[in-house]
C-alpha cells in the first residue's frame, strides 16, 4: 500500500473547506470509529500553507488564514488525542501553548461527584499561560508515544515505566467538563464552559496579527451526554440539538461525531416494527436530526463483505439536510458526494481509495 500524505488527497476537499456556520456530521459504528477522521480535520485546520503543503499542491488549505481548533471529547482523554496527533506530526501540546488549539476534556470528570472537587486551574489567561513553566513537563509525558520508525526492532526499547508522579499531577492545558444538575440547565453550564474556552482561543494573541481567527469546533461524541442522561434527566434530542446549535454560534464551523450503529438508529426508526427504548428513540432522533441540520455527513461503516486485512472500512460522504441553504457560502466549497474505502495503517497513516483501486 503506497503511503499517503497525512491528509490523503481524496479527503482534502472535504476536510479543508468548511463553510461558515456549517455543521459537519461524522457518523461512526462500533467497528469503524471516526477518530482518525477527526484527526484529519484537526490536521487540515491546524496546518496552513506551510512549505510541505505547498509542495503537495494542496491549494485548498493555503488560504493563508490559519484556523484554530477547540476539541471537545467525551469518550477519549487528552493522552489519546495527543499521541495520535503526534503520529500525524501535529504537536497538540505546542499548539495549545500557541493558543491555536484547546482541548476540553469531557471524559475525566464528567460524571464525577461534586465532592471530589478538583483544583481546576483557570485557563484562558493568555498572558499568564506563556509564563507557566509546567509546560516543560509535557515532553516527558509522551513516553507511551509510538516510535516513528516501524518494522522489526529487536533492540530493547525503553520499557514504558510507570508514569512519573509529577506528570500525573499536571493535567495539562485542559478544561474539564462536569455535568451537574438536570435538564437544559446542566447543558447550559457545559455550553458556558466550552464557550469560555472558544473565546479564550479566539482572543487574538499579540504577535499573531490576525483579527478574528476562524475557530473550528470539534465535538467528539456528544451523543454520550444524551445516552447517559436520557429523558428522565430532562435531556432529550431537542435539548441536545439546541445545545449543539448554541455552541455552533461561537465557532466558525462545527464538526460533530455521532454513533450510527444499527441498534441505535434503526430500532426506533419508523420502519421498525418493535417497540424501542427511550435511549434508542432519543439517540436516533438526535443523530438523524443533526444529519438534517448538517451541511455534510460523513458516514463510516464496516465493509459489507466482512472484515478485510487491507481495508478498515467504508467512508461515504453525502450532502446533509442543510446543504444548499446559503448559496453564497456554498459557492466556494465544491465537493461531490462520494463513497471510498479507507485503510488505517499501523503507523497511523491512512490511505483512501476507491473501490477496486
Amino acid at each position, binding site marked *: 500500500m503506497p503511503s499517503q500524505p497525512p491528509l490523503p488527497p481524496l479527503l482534502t476537499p472535504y476536510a479543508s473547506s468548511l463553510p461558515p456556520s456549517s455543521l459537519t456530521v461524522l457518523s461512526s459504528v462500533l467497528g469503524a470509529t471516526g477518530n482518525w477522521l477527526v484527526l484529519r480535520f484537526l490536521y487540515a485546520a491546524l496546518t496552513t500553507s506551510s512549505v510541505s503543503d505547498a509542495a503537495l499542491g494542496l491549494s485548498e488549505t493555503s488560504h493563508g488564514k490559519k484556523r484554530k481548533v477547540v476539541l471537545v471529547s467525551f469518550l477519549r482523554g487528552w493522552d489519546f488525542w495527543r499521541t495520535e496527533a503526534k503520529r500525524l506530526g501535529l504537536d497538540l501540546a505546542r499548539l495549545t501553548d500557541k493558543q491555536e488549539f484547546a482541548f476540553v476534556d469531557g471524559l475525566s470528570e464528567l460524571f464525577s461527584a461534586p465532592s471530589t472537587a478538583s483544583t481546576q486551574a483557570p485557563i484562558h489567561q493568555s498572558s499568564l499561560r506563556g509564563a507557566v513553566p509546567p509546560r516543560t513537563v509535557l515532553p516527558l509525558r509522551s513516553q507511551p508515544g509510538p516510535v516513528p520508525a516501524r518494522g522489526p526492532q529487536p533492540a530493547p526499547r525503553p*520499557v514504558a515505566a*510507570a508514569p512519573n508522579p509529577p506528570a500525573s499531577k499536571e*493535567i495539562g492545558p485542559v478544561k474539564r467538563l462536569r455535568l451537574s444538575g438536570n435538564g437544559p440547565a446542566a447543558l447550559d453550564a457545559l455550553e458556558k464552559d466550552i464557550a469560555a474556552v472558544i473565546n479564550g482561543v479566539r482572543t487574538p494573541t499579540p504577535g499573531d496579527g490576525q483579527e478574528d481567527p476562524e475557530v473550528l469546533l470539534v465535538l467528539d461524541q456528544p451523543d454520550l451526554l444524551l445516552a447517559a442522561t436520557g429523558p428522565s434527566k430532562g435531556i432529550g434530542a431537542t435539548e441536545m440539538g439546541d445545545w449543539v446549535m448554541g455552541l455552533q454560534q461561537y465557532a466558525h464551523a462545527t464538526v460533530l461525531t455521532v454513533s450510527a*450503529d444499527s441498534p441505535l438508529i434503526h430500532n426506533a426508526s419508523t420502519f421498525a416494527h418493535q417497540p424501542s427504548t427511550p435511549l434508542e428513540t432519543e439517540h436516533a432522533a438526535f443523530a438523524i436530526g443533526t444529519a438534517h441540520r448538517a451541511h455534510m455527513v460523513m458516514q463510516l461503516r464496516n465493509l459489507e463483505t466482512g472484515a478485510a486485512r487491507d481495508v478498515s472500512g467504508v467512508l461515504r460522504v453525502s450532502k446533509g439536510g442543510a446543504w444548499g441553504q446559503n448559496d453564497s457560502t456554498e459557492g466556494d466549497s465544491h465537493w461531490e458526494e462520494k463513497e471510498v474505502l479507507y485503510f488505517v495503517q499501523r503507523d497511523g497513516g491512512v490511505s483512501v481509495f476507491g473501490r477496486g483501486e
Partner: protein
Amino acid sequence: MSFRKRNIGLSAGFDRNGAVNPSAQPQQAPATPESTPGVRPSPDDGRPTTSTGTPSLDNLLAGHGGLPIGKILLVEENGTTDFAGALLRYYAAEGVVQDQKIHVVGMPEQWGRSLPGLIGPADAVDEKQDKRKGDRMKIAWRYERLGEFGAGIAGSRASVPSGDQSQSATDASVDKRPAFCHAFDLTKRLTHPSITNLNYIPLAPSNEPLLVTIQKRLQAAIASSPPNTVHRIVIPSLLNPTIYPPETSQPDHLLPFLHSLRALMSAPGARITAMITLPLSLFPRSTGLVRWMEILSDGVIELCPFPHSSDALATSGAATSHEEPPQGMLKVHRLPVLHERGGGSDQNIGLDWAFTLSRKRFEIKPFSLPPDEGDKEGQEAAVTGGMPKKADLEF
C-alpha cells in the same frame, strides 16, 4: 511490522526458544531496571500491557500480546453457559499471581476462593502442547497458521525482553517465576499468599444509586493503594438481575458508571485494566443500551457456545480426533487500541474463531472445517453440527 517479525521467529523454532528463554534473558534484563511483574511493553507500539491469564486471548488482542493498561474488555456471552466466567477467573487468578490488586464487584468472597489453581508459567504448559501441535501440522499445511497463532506468546517474549525476567534470575523457584502469563487448572483451587488481598465490593444498598457507590469505592480503593500498583477490575455478569437491582440497567445509571470507569482508567498515572462480562440472553446486542456499553468499552468479544450436547460435538468441528472439539464460536467486535485508531490491519481480523474450554486452558483457535478424513459419518455430523454457520457465512 511486529507480526512479520514474530513469524520469522516461528520458523526458527519458536517454542524451543520459549523454553530456553529463562536462561537467555538475564543478560538483557538489566537494561530495563524499572518494571512491574506482569506488565510488559506491547510488541506493537510499546505501551504497557498485562496478561488476561488466557494466552490465546492475549494473542487475539491486536498484536499487543495482552490487554493494554487502561483498557476495558467486555466479554459477552450468549446462552446460560458460563464460559465468560471462566475467562474472568483466569483473568483474576493471573492478577493474583502477579501481585496485582484485584477489585471484584458484586461477588461474595467464595468467588475468590474458586479461582483456578496455578500450574505454572503458560510457556511451560505450551511446551507440552506444542509437541502435539507439531504432529498435527503434518496433516495439512493450512494448520500452519494455528501453530503461528499459538506461538504468539513465545515469539513476542523472545523479541521483546520484558523486565520481569530480571527477577527470575534471582528467584530460585522456577514455578513462582513472574512470567507474563500463567496456566491454571480449573479443577484446583488457587493458593497464593496474595489471594486474601482481593478487594470485594459488595452490592450493598445505600442511599445513593448503587453504581455510584461502586464507582466511589473503586476510586477510593485505587487512590489509597501505593502509586505503582497495577489494578484489575473484575465485574462478573454485569446487570444480571439476580445480582443487580433492576434500576442499574437504566442508561442514566449504567452509562455514567461505565464512563466514569473509563475516566478512572485513563487518569494519568493509573495502571488499571478491567474485564466485564455481560449476559447477552438478558441484554441482547441488538439493543441500544448494549451498543452503548460496547462503545464505552475498548474491546468487545462475544462468545456463542454451541447448543449441542458434548456427545454430538465429539465429531463436529474438531480438526483431529485427539483435539478438543470447539465448544462455541467467538466473535471479535472490537479490539483495544486498534479500533480506537480506526481499525484494520490486524492479522487476526476476518477470521472465524472457535473456543475450547478444557480443564487446563481456555483456548481460542481459528475455526475451520474438519479435514476430509474419509469419515463419512463424521462429515455428516459436522454438517449438522457447527458447520451450517460457516456455510451461511460464505454463501
